């Protein structure tokens, strides 16, 4: 192979590789994996692939549009100078120009139609939490999140299945979920607006004081080809004050067995601490699970 060709291909391969998102050598069970490349972080969710697919189809459309626009302008700048300017297009010129509008708007309508259809289906899933109505552990995992300046506090229902009772495990910046089980979150904030951001699950939702927002997610079951167990970062995505940049938490994905074990131990610890918490109103922030 010609040396310049080999070098060119090598550079191109390097360029493509730099875009890759996943660092395959890192085991998330040992520590949070650093990101790499310029694609979104590795997706561990059941529904995130829909978002990624929409990214690619939208980019295809936008990319073609943009390329055509650039070519058009370049052609005009290079070849439509120092000539007789056309005051009025000829009849076939008019038809040609009209064709351009027809083609572009046709493509636009098709793309927007595709987006509308896809998003309608997506929202039925992302924002359609009615199917979890009335369900509770072990079919789903329910978590109440209370955002603070500048930490994420989370409460689980505990063995009694009821929130705001003494057996609720309450955690700070350390939210554990089982892989393969839907997790439904109801969330509010004590002070200012925060936003619960899970880059590895392609979702975020605002925590607004005075409101309880509900969302759900599910981590794919762990396999050797597609590992999902381990630690991932929770970010805050709404400016919330001086330490907004440090308001990161940790999402720990465990096997259902590990999760049950942790939940039981944490609940026992919570009950042991009830005496100490008797006068701590700040610790009793839970609310009865809202039916939505």
């Amino acid at each position, binding site marked *: 192979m010609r040396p310049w060709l080999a070098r060119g291909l090598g550079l191109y391969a390097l360029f493509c590789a730099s875009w890759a998102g996943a660092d395959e050598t890192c085991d998330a069970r040992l520590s949070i994996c650093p990101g790499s490349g310029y694609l979104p972080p590795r997706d561990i969710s059941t529904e995130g692939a829909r978002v990624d697919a929409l990214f690619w189809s939208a980019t295809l459309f936008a990319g073609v549009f943009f390329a055509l626009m650039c070519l058009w*302008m370049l052609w005009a700048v290079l070849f439509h100078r120092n*000539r007789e300017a056309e*005051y009025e297009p000829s009849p076939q010129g008019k038809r040609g120009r009209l064709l351009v509008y027809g083609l572009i708007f046709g493509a*636009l309508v098709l793309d927007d139609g595709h987006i509308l259809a896809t998003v309608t289906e997506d*929202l039925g899933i992302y924002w359609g939490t009615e199917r979890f109505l009335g369900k509770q552990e072990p079919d789903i995992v329910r978590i109440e999140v209370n955002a603070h300046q500048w930490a994420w506090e989370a409460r689980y229902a505990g063995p009694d299945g009821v929130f705001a009772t003494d057996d609720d495990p309450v955690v700070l910046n350390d939210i554990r979920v089982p892989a393969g089980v839907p997790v439904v979150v109801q969330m509010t904030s004590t002070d200012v*607006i925060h936003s619960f951001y899970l880059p590895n699950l392609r979702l975020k939702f605002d925590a607004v004081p005075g409101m309880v927002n509900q969302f759900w997610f599910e981590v794919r079951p762990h396999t050797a080809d597609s590992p999902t167990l381990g630690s991932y970062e929770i970010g805050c995505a709404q400016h919330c004050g001086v*330490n907004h940049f440090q308001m990161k938490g940790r999402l720990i994905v465990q096997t259902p067995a590990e999760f049950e074990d942790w939940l039981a131990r944490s609940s026992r610890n919570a009950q042991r601490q009830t005496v100490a918490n008797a006068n701590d109103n700040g610790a009793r922030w839970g609310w009865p699970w809202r039916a939505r």
Partner: protein
Amino acid sequence: MELQPIHPAPKFFLWRYVFSTDHKVIAKQYLFAGLVFLLLGGLLAMAIRWQWAYPGEDVPLLGRPLTPASYNSVFTMHGLIMIFFAVTPILISAFGNYLIPLMIGARDMAFPRLNMWSFWVFLLSQVLMLLSSVTQLGAASSGWTLYPPLSSNVGTPGLGQTLVVAAVFVTGVSTIMGAINFITTIIRLRAPGMDYFKLPATVWGLFLTSILNLVFVPVLGAAGVLLLLDRLLGTQFFVASGAMSGPGDPLLFQHLFWIFGHPEVYILILPAWGFLTDMMSFFSRRPAFWYRGSVWAMIGITALSGIVYGHHMYVSGLNPLLGKTFMVLTLLISFPAEILFLNWLQTLWRGSLRLTTPMLFALGTIFVFGLGGLTGIYLATISTDLYLHDTMFVVGHFHMTMAAASFLAALAAIYFWFPKMFGRQMSEALGKLHFALSVPLITAVFTGQMIAGFAGQSRRLFDPYVYVTFKHLLPINQWTSYLAFALLGAQAIFVVNFFYGIFFGKRAPANPWEVGTLEWSVPSPPPYHNFDSVPTVSWGPHELSNPEVKRRLGRDWIGQHEAPVDAATEKAAE
């Protein structure tokens, strides 16, 4: 009896150049006030970029590093200054004031004294902004979007934040005064024969911007007043806490803010779209393609702009049906914008392009706005917005559409109307060098932001690298910062060219660009009363390369006020 009789200019310096009611003087006052704050906003941006390239290191010229608190103030003031105190005064107030009376054939605005007051009220708002930075707790730090409860007296106590909210209110008052003036002038003081569809697109852009300002700035004013009441008098319009609802609703502020905030982005781009429609025609030497379509497209966008605002609130807990409705409307509003684009491209086609500095910047504006506008699709689409909301992708998108497009369009306008405003010409060579550096750099800087955002980096982070997931984005952020510093440096060429031109530039003829709109039919600079006699308009604004005109007059342009070239007039002239 003329609507606006000629009267002599005042002789005393204070009434002639300081407290002037002459729209041309007021326009220049706005221009310089805006340019000063543009520099200030730009320096604040450089501080942000410095922090992201060299986290925790001393900022040059400042001598100490940014702290999380000062960083929050820096990006808050950067946003507010650029939107309200740089782009608005330059694009709308300066060019609106200067061009509207001249382009419609009037001698001044409908309300010259109101015009003068609008500038001094604006100056007061700029002073309030500057004062906020010398308060004990520092300037505002809640983000330019001022979301409560963070922006309430509980979230961000101190006089600085209050002064900034007050400054926004005061500048809103100035804007409304200006809007009243522009709208009344355009409706009532057009010269005989100047029908609405003979108006230059520049006037249409400024007209529609003023309508949006008049309708939606009061909503911002209302939100500001409610916020000030919360901050100063202990009301609880927006303050709430925990899972109990009431008394306050933080989301109410978001609705009020974005009902203004979304039309605001169209306010900042409509004058630019007007300039582009005109300049594409002028520098292709042919009529603007489907001019009626462009005007109706701008009107359509104006009408739709108030009902798409919910796309800023997709993840805040809105009813899903509401979210979907906003998405459909947001996708729809891209249709008129698409028409505008295609009309510009069609105007270029088979023209005889003159690649002057204003034309180069206008083409650059179309390029960056095309790129920025297309990235809006990802944000309009709810599914992808769930990931992209509040990341650097959003920042890249609005910078590409607002900062890059409006900034380049403002430069195009300055290069284009400089001969008329100052009676001298800027250097074409320096202008082209400025273009060659600015457009690639500005594209690269904001593309860098979008790349970081697509990788997931959130916005408004003092130190993004605290997140292990985003630590690897340091190189792209550094590169974006280097390019941003270079972009700032490149503007020195413009500053030198601008001031050299004002004092030492070659004297400009009345019509250096050879186009037909009315401002080019008077000397450069125009006399105090603009027109010796009010013109009668026969032609449209884009009458270029008309074969009949070429045959009878030997040139490819004809002024809007010139006599019609037809058989009847020829017969009469014989």
